[in-house]
């Protein structure tokens, strides 16, 4: 029995499978062209792009922590125009479904980057990074206010008909209200979570381990919190959700999918195992077969909640 792994992530975009390489963890995709078949991934979310080139933070940019890592890359990047000219053609050749993660220091910059991508060939969707914890201006500044979230999404919505996926920060008290704000401003889906603002200190030197002092925590350490947040968003909105945070194997991905994610992104795990994609697909297919299910859509949001107000045992 063949199983159908395809998913519709909103805005008319259907992916052959739910596995997306997470932004910032897969370069511009082209770096992996010789390692994995990019066309076999559900999609590739490329490194966050501003209008212009950026140098990012000085080293040290990462540090490992228990079952996770902190990063403060600072969104080093080649800028959207060079991306379109130099990377997009190769991604098209490889048959990759390309989601472009975009950033801005101002609402105007977000809109300008989106406008450029709207006119480019081979962009499947735009992921709005309003959640990067590592930069002074932009990023989480917008994503941690309901107003900011609404305004950025609405401004970008006005300039493009590409599927629009705001990426939410977990560094807020009530993440579901941000999913609502994104929906009201015209988002087609939301992705979550970006990294958790965090810090590590070298006690011998008493210095922060990252040059930027603070950074974003990713990896298995954050998974249970990320799953809870997807669950909360699922209760609040009916938009497609793209879940992520510490997914290391198919079972981890299924937690997000059962909680209500239509697709998932995999970031840190790709550093540990660049060949993870085949294993994820095999694991997911095996699960569907084992449960006698014809397609992944039967699993999305299939969480069995205990009856409310059940009498105490």
């Amino acid at each position, binding site marked *: 029995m063949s199983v159908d792994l395809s998913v519709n992530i909103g805005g008319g975009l259907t992916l052959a499978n739910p596995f997306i390489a997470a932004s910032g963890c897969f370069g511009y995709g082209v770096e992996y062209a010789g390692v994995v078949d990019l066309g076999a991934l559900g999609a590739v979310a490329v490194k966050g792009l501003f209008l212009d080139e950026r140098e990012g933070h000085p080293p040290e940019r990462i*540090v490992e922590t228990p079952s996770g890592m902190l990063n403060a890359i600072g969104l080093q990047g080649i800028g959207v125009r060079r991306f379109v000219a130099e990377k997009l053609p190769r991604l098209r050749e490889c048959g990759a479904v390309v989601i472009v993660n975009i950033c801005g220091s101002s609402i105007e910059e977000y809109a300008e980057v989106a406008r450029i991508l709207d006119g480019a060939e081979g962009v499947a969707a735009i992921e709005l990074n309003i959640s990067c914890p590592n930069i002074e201006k932009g990023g989480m500044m917008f994503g941690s206010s309901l107003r900011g979230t609404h305004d950025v999404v609405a401004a970008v919505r006005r300039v493009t008909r590409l599927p629009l996926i705001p990426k939410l920060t977990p560094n807020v008290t009530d993440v579901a209200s941000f999913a609502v704000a994104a929906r009201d401003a015209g988002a087609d889906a939301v992705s979550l979570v970006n990294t958790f603002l965090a810090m590590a200190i070298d006690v011998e030197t008493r210095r922060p381990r990252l040059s930027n002092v603070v950074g974003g925590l990713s990896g298995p350490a954050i998974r249970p919190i990320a799953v809870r947040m997807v669950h909360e968003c699922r209760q609040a909105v009916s938009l497609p959700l793209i879940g992520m945070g510490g997914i290391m194997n198919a079972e981890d991905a299924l937690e997000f999918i059962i909680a209500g994610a239509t697709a998932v992104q995999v970031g840190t795990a790709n550093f540990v195992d660049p060949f993870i994609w085949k294993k994820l697909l095999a694991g997911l297919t095996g699960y569907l077969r084992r449960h006698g299910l014809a397609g992944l859509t039967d699993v999305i949001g299939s969480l069995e909640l205990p009856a409310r107000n059940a009498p105490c045992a």
Partner: protein
Amino acid sequence: MPVDVDAVVLSNARLSPDYNVLALAAPDIAIRAKPGQFVMVKPGRGDHPLLRRPFSVFEVLRDTGGVTGLSLLNKRIGVTTRTLFGLEPGAAVRCLGPLGRPFSPAAPPERAWMVAGGVGLAPFHGLAAALRARGVESTLFYGARSAGELFRLDAFRRLGVRLALATDDGSRGDHGRVTLPLERALRRLDPAVPLRLYACGPTPMMRAVTNLADAHGRRTEVSLEQVMGCGLGGCYSCVVPIRRGGEAPRFVRSCLDGPVFDGGTVVWDGLGAG
């Protein structure tokens, strides 16, 4: 294209209380590895430690039937290196490679001087073998804390490499930094003799070697050891500030554009604490 293998530990030779040479059955990687390239290693499958660590390929191992694997020169510092120190034959280590830009080996009549500090010896066994195959006259300047931490000298001698040693405690060779014998040799060498230097070790050492060589009109290829996340260009964590031509310095990824760089292009002050 790199390959990822579950490499079985063939042997673990403990050289001192801190250093060991771990032989891994990874012939597919070893056959392709060029001097200066590295592998990303993870012992065990668990989430702690989570990430792989970069290691230079130390030796390419052969028997009568051909290439059987590769070895790593390991120094016990953190979680992964402690685990690698303790592994017994038969254990498995995940090993991805070969990765990175290799050294460009000199060709006669050019001479080659390799400058190693501590565990920075690692990339030079492979380079020495390549230099010997090309008939390049080569010397290893090698510094360590003490005589007991100067390893595998015979292996280098067998490859026809001349040795110049230095130890921090003076127990062997020059008393002090490896730059002492290096500076003497640079002064003594006829400037008309073509020479290329290679350096690997602590950042201050590589910087000193590059500057010293530069003062004598010589170029140095350095092999930098940045903290790496993926080894494949995905994460942008292993960047090094590089100045090419008259341009402003740029952060470039050590895993793709390095780990070997022209020492004269490295902006040493911006390299980070590591």
